[in-house]
């Protein structure tokens, strides 16, 4: 064997030995470092992608624009009327809240984040967001939108973080079903299709009387996800040998996520 090849093989074997001995903390450190390196490029790419999308949206036909303009003018008048009514209600609401020393309605401190990239792999469902430890993020923080639960943070770099989606098989959420005492664990399905991925809920009782459309919320068990966050609606329920098993339609369209909120903690 040639000397250079032999030398290369020895160096490679030593490097492999070093990498294989990385434990969970070493792995997370390496991932955090690399995410820090790649994040600025992903962010620039995301900006470019948005600009291109905006340009494409802007290239509409004149007729379409005229029709859209008329519709917008009508809806603008409607909204002005609604806005005026709401202003009156806001004044009244504030007066009553002050009178009753009412506490704030939002229970959590949320920080908005922009999705800068989606996972490019075939089997893992993650996204990258433009907030990191500099914004107060840590790993295992819930991520949601106004429609429902999205996932939780995993690797957190200074200005970016990786979020594992609820459609990933490794993301498990303790949950309960509205109107019942049924509780189960929700996770994603390996290799689920491209359209809206389905979620599955395991460990339900075999006698559960569940109907399609029933809503499922996080139960708060486990401590990562707050209780009462909407996850999805039941699509199908079937009884297996040991437990009941339901498939769910997620509340959030996980394939077109653009903006999310990270739950930093209770206010």
């Amino acid at each position, binding site marked *: 064997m040639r*000397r250079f090849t032999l030398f*290369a093989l020895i160096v490679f074997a030593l490097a492999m030995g070093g*990498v294989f001995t990385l434990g*969970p903390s*070493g792995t997370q450190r390496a991932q955090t*470092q690399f995410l820090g390196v790649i994040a600025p490029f992903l962010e620039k790419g995301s900006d470019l992608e948005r600009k291109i999308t905006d340009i494409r949206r802007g290239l509409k036909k004149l007729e379409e624009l005229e029709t859209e303009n008329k519709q917008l003018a009508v809806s603008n008048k409607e909204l002005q009327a609604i806005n005026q009514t709401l202003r009156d209600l806001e004044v009244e609401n504030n007066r009553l809240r002050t009178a009753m020393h009412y506490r704030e309605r939002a229970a959590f401190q949320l920080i908005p984040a922009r999705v800068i990239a989606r*996972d490019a792999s*075939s089997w893992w469902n993650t996204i990258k967001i433009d907030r990191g430890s500099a914004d107060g993020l840590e790993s295992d923080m819930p991520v949601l939108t106004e429609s429902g639960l999205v996932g939780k943070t995993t690797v957190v770099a200074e200005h970016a973080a990786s979020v594992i989606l609820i459609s990933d098989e490794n993301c498990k959420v303790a949950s309960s079903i509205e109107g019942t005492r049924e509780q189960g664990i929700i996770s994603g399905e390996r*290799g689920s299709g491209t359209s809206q991925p389905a979620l599955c809920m395991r460990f339900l009782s075999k006698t559960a009387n569940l109907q399609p459309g029933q809503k499922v919320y996080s139960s708060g068990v486990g401590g990562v996800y707050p209780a009462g966050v909407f996850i999805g609606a039941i699509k199908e329920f079937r009884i297996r040998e040991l437990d009941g098993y339901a498939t769910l339609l997620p509340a959030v369209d996980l394939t077109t996520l653009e903006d999310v909120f990270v739950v930093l903690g209770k206010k």
Partner: protein
Amino acid sequence: MIRFFLILLFSAFGALIVQHFIPALPFLSGARVLLMPLVFFFGALTLPFGGMLALAFACGFMWDALTVQVIEVGMGPSNAMVVEIGFGWSILLYAMLGAVMSGFRPLFKRGRWEIHCLMSGICTSLIVLSEFLLISIRRAALYNVPFEFNRDIWWRIGGPGLVALVLAPVVFFFLKSLATLVGYNPNEVEPEEEV
């Protein structure tokens, strides 16, 4: 050679970033477009064995840094953090497939450029298949979830290979042009090979 190696390294990094912005292909059951393996396989055909190993290490490291998951297993006091698939498996996978590609170098040097195209397709699918087997075996042990192959999964394994097959000539001629630009001729016989 070093300049060309650096070009391949930056191209692999660039390909990794670009593939994040290419959506899954709905007509191939959600198969992904993987560009980084195409760059690596070009390197495996054009670089000497040592260079191929270095590139395999870089590509595998970058891939694992983005995909490996550290998960919590067990409940209560017995819970522990484990790495789902050990960091470094992709490096090994890339090195093994790169070694296979290196075996085709004599043919490639004789001008058979289609070797890159064909082998990139096969090897890209092999990467995705290996990942699926690794996570399936691991999750079967962790969660006691059996793994199954359905039509969608087969497409998600074969799809990236088919896409690689189509894109390989473009990547090939782009990287070949860069090699010419920096004065690297992969067809030249290295002094060591004459021995």
